[in-house]
């Protein structure tokens, strides 16, 4: 049960993740999404992302974004709104399985 506690979002993570989450919050606006796409590194720098956060964004490494204080609700604006991934793409990426396997696991949860 170590996994779930790591993903519970408390104040210290919110402090660490603030630049990353603040950048994601701007993605509510299309102009911001477009600006990010036109120069990702510059946009990350504009919000003062740490080196580790910037690397995680560049690598599309969602687990690392979470470890660096990213919050799921805000990261979704990056992953879905900017990168065009749906929640099953994101789930598969994080759990190291194919999208089909991830979706099969969801369906199986209904049969228990």
């Amino acid at each position, binding site marked *: 049960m170590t996994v779930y506690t790591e993903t519970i979002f408390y104040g210290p993570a919110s402090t660490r993740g603030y630049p990353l989450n603040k950048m994601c919050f701007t993605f509510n606006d299309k102009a911001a999404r477009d600006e990010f796409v036109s120069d990702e590194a510059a946009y990350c720098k504009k919000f003062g992302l740490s080196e580790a956060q910037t690397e995680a964004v560049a690598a599309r490494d969602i687990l690392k974004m979470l470890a660096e204080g990213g919050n799921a609700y805000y990261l979704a*604006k990056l992953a879905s709104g900017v990168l065009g991934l749906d929640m099953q793409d994101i789930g598969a990426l994080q759990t190291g399985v194919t999208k089909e396997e991830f979706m099969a696991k969801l369906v199986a949860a*209904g049969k228990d």
Partner: protein
Amino acid sequence: MAKIVGTIYTTHVPAIGNAIRNKKQDDPYWKPFFDGFNFVHDWVAQVQPTVAVVFYNDHGLGFWLDALPTFAIGCAEEYKTKDEGWGIPTFTDFDGDTDLSWHIADALKRADFDVVTCQEMYFDHALAIPMELTWPGVQRPIKIVPIEINTVLFPIPSAARCLALGRAVGKAIESYGKDERVLVFGTGGLSHQLEGERAGFINKKFDLDFVDSLPTNPEWATQFTGEEIAESTGTQGVELINWLAARGTIQGDAKTLHMNYHIPISDTAACTMVQVAA
């Protein structure tokens, strides 16, 4: 006097917004979920609510980490939505009922709930999707009172506190002098977790135990901390605290008129339920 006509509980998964936009209601993936609203449509036509009081959680549109309330109530004449960056449709705006909002807000503060009052407030899919599901494709005949609960930053308000909040809101509604017919919503849940190595976590047994507890023993969920609820139902499954608040508005026992539970919609165990006073 105002009267609570009942409560509706429903999932608010963002993808539902796209399914509505793309008319996927009869698609095999979506049909088991949307069919759960046939009863809701008939029932709402009978009870004819004039106001919807909606307990929901914002996902970074109306509020964000710069100033994050634990409980916030809208006291606006109109509520706007806008692009929320998730790649889902933008919803329509709503009229507010400021008299009822202030009545509830004042009652909450007098009952020692230190609620944030908002005269301008954006709402996201967590409020809009349940409205779209309940009144599809029609001009909605209601005004709204939104009540937002933090589920982003832990510690989240406890299940006990949310149930008590709902009870205070229910008392406030029942003491309101105008003849409004109030339909209360609790949105979000049930079990799901979007992030981390446990992404895709669903817990059918916990969900069904929770649903079973609501009519006559809503205190059941109050035995758990926010963290324990996250463990059992996923980090986003904690949205069930919105359901507890809505349930609290019915004083005494409730009875379930309708329940539809379906796994999965997106990553979520979807549930729709209608309850009235027993």
